[in-house]
């Protein structure tokens, strides 16, 4: 349709994005919002590292440090890492399985706006009397005692954004089960699709535990219940269980898609079929399955008793087996491959040893008796930064470079990309490697300063210097993005030249209806198969016909806005008279919007065959 190529004013573009239900545009929204929160979380990390650079520092006060530390963890996990993964899932997964969109485009948009308003709500705490300060785990015994509204921002904000995540997860499950192109069997799905599938299943099962936990916390703090108050017959340990029943699968929700991204990148740039594809799938599913039986390893020192500790320790160590399978499969994929060291491939190569280091300390921590020593020390901080930065963040940076052409139609500069990579990798190891030893020397985590002459000065200084390397790397990435966007040199379908999966068979960026005719998938790496037979594009699986498209809608924004307003009402209900009316107004907006959605028929529209045929003329150059 010609309207797609029209030049639009700023207002029209803004309205387009506010109402879009197109998975590719929602991906861009996730990328922008997640990127902003990533930078915010990074700034908080810099404050932490500046404060800890020298002993007895007073760059920030102890109370403010607690807030910064809490917000760094919460922002990075909930508002940066997950949305950024959703960005790439949205951009790539429907294309990889040969679908026209996700199964529920409206819900996709709703999921984004819920996440966005939840994140904004959480971060408004900085301006409204102080941020949450009980750590990202927000253990109830501490968070119930926290004064002010910080923890309320945490519980209400995460509740709202948690709904968004749950919706997004269900959407991907339904999409992958039902909307695969003809011939795309489960065992032909690219690894990124597989890991998205398993991660979405984990979201489906893990997030309800968080929802329940946060509801209890909200009601304890704002509505006079006593779920976690031992003096009133509650139990504070329940929060820890609920949180970690969610929290442990959460780290697999983050790392599995990262594995998928690297699997695709490694096989693309080794120019080889992924080694041991079926064992990779098996390992992914097994990690997802085991991920639900290990949550109590976060609570070894809570006093569960030796039997429970032993069971959870053994289960935790068992996860190293499927992860090891994956590591060896990546190595064997590269072995004998004709490797091209592009920026994404550099990240992938660096990821393997970095992540293994995080995995090894993970097995160390899984040994329950030893954990009593490591517990709450910088050793733990080093461990989880090694898996999350060494795994998830490296994958996000790799995917940014790898999928940028597919999302925006332009290539990020490779030279600047490699500078970003080296600075980030060096900075990352500089920051966190030494923290293992700081931890073993006895530096506890979450302290706002330390004393001189305890042997902790050098380590902390080195760590802070490393953090600046990562900051510079991020700034160079942003410069790279600006330069690339300004130059705006468009590229074709398969800019890397070695694309294997379906997303590279389609224009960059894809037309808004994705595939004109659904492609016929004849095996694993379908585009590669066609290329090897000398074909330029996929064989269509259906005759050209009308395409049914959903209409855009402003309702998801309104539903989310209503909850955002209601959250303020719930929070200030006890302080001000206007709290309760605001709570009610917010809920009325939300449920009213849902009602409008329910009674108003919205059948979408059709793109007619003739228009699709017209599009053939300007194929490949479409903006």
């Amino acid at each position: 349709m010609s309207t797609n190529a029209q030049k639009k004013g700023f207002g029209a573009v803004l309205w387009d994005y506010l109402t879009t239900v197109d998975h590719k545009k929602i991906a861009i929204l996730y990328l922008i919002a997640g990127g902003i929160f990533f930078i915010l979380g990074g700034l908080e990390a810099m404050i932490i590292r500046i404060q800890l650079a020298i002993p007895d520092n007073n760059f920030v006060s102890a109370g403010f440090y607690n807030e910064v530390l809490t917000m760094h963890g919460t922002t990075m996990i909930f508002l940066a890492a997950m949305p950024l993964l959703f960005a790439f899932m949205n951009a790539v997964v429907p294309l990889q399985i040969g679908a026209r969109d996700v199964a529920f485009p409206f819900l996709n948009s709703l999921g984004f706006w819920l996440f966005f308003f939840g994140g904004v709500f959480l971060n408004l705490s900085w301006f409204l009397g102080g941020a949450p300060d009980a750590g990202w785990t927000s253990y109830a015994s501490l968070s119930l005692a926290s004064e002010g509204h910080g923890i309320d921002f945490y519980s209400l904000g995460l509740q709202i954004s948690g709904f968004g995540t749950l919706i997004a997860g269900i959407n991907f499950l339904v999409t992958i089960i039902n909307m695969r192109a003809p011939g795309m069997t489960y065992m032909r799905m690219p690894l990124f699709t597989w890991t998205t599938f398993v991660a979405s299943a984990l979201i489906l099962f893990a997030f309800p535990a968080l929802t329940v936990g946060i509801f209890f916390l909200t009601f304890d703090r704002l509505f006079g219940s006593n779920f976690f108050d031992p003096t009133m017959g509650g139990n504070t340990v329940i929060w820890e269980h609920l949180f970690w029943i969610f929290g442990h699968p959460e780290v697999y929700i983050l790392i599995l898609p990262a594995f998928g991204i690297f699997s695709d990148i490694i096989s693309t740039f080794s120019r080889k079929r992924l080694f041991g594809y079926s064992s990779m799938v098996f390992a992914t599913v097994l990690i997802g399955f085991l991920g639900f039986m290990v949550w109590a390893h976060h609570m070894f020192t809570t006093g569960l008793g030796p039997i429970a500790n032993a069971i959870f320790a053994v289960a935790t160590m068992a996860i190293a087996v499927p992860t090891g399978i994956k590591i060896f499969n990546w190595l064997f994929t590269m072995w004998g491959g004709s490797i091209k060291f592009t920026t994404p491939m550099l990240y992938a190569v660096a990821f393997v040893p970095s992540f293994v280091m995080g995995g090894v300390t993970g097995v160390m921590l899984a040994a329950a008796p030893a954990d009593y020593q490591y517990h709450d020390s910088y050793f733990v901080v080093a461990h989880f930064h090694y898996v999350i930065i060494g795994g998830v963040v490296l994958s996000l940076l790799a995917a940014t470079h790898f999928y940028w052409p597919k999302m925006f139609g332009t290539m990020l500069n490779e030279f600047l990309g490699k500078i970003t990579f080296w600075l980030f990798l060096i900075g990352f190891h500089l920051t966190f490697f030494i923290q293992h030893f700081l931890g073993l020397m006895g530096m506890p985590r979450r302290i706002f300063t330390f004393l001189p002459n305890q042997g902790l000065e050098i380590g902390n200084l080195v760590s802070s210097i490393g953090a600046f390397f990562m900051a510079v790397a991020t700034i160079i990435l942003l410069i790279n993005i600006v330069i690339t966007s300004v130059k705006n040199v468009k590229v074709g379908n398969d800019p890397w030249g070695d694309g294997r999966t379906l997303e590279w068979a389609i224009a960059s960026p894809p037309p808004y209806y994705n595939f004109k005719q659904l492609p016929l998938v004849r095996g694993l790496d379908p585009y590669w198969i066609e290329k090897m037979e000398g074909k330029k594009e996929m064989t269509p699986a259906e005759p050209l016909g009308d395409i049914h498209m959903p209409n855009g809608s402003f309702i998801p924004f309104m539903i989310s806005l209503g909850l955002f307003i209601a959250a303020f009402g719930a929070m200030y209900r006890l302080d001000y008279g206007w709290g309760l009316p605001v709570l009610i107004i917010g809920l009325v907006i939300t449920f009213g919007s849902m009602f409008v959605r329910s009674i108003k028929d919205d059948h979408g529209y059709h793109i007619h065959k003739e228009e699709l045929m017209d599009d053939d003329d300007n194929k490949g150059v479409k903006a």
Partner: protein
Amino acid sequence: MANQQSTSGNPRVDLEYRRKKNVEEMRYQVITFALMIFLTLIAFAAVGFGDVSNWFTIPFILLLAVVQVIFQLYYFMHMSHKGHEAPQLFLYSGALVGFLTVLAFMTIIWW
């Protein structure tokens, strides 16, 4: 899915077969319905007879409840039909996670 229309274009092709299937299904549903009423009566009876120990009654009525849920899912919500593999997988995974949570709460949380 099993409840989808025939794609042959000729609606009369398997009408006979469908009718037979429907009759069969109806029979199963009536039988299950009767069984479920019966199980409910047993459950009430188990609680009603005061002299049976709670250690028997509670697991017993829980067991009856599980049987009823299975009846409901398989005979009334058609999970016994083909094409329900994915819903089954997710249902059982969810039940497993829920079970693990309850088990953990009952065994390793100190009160």
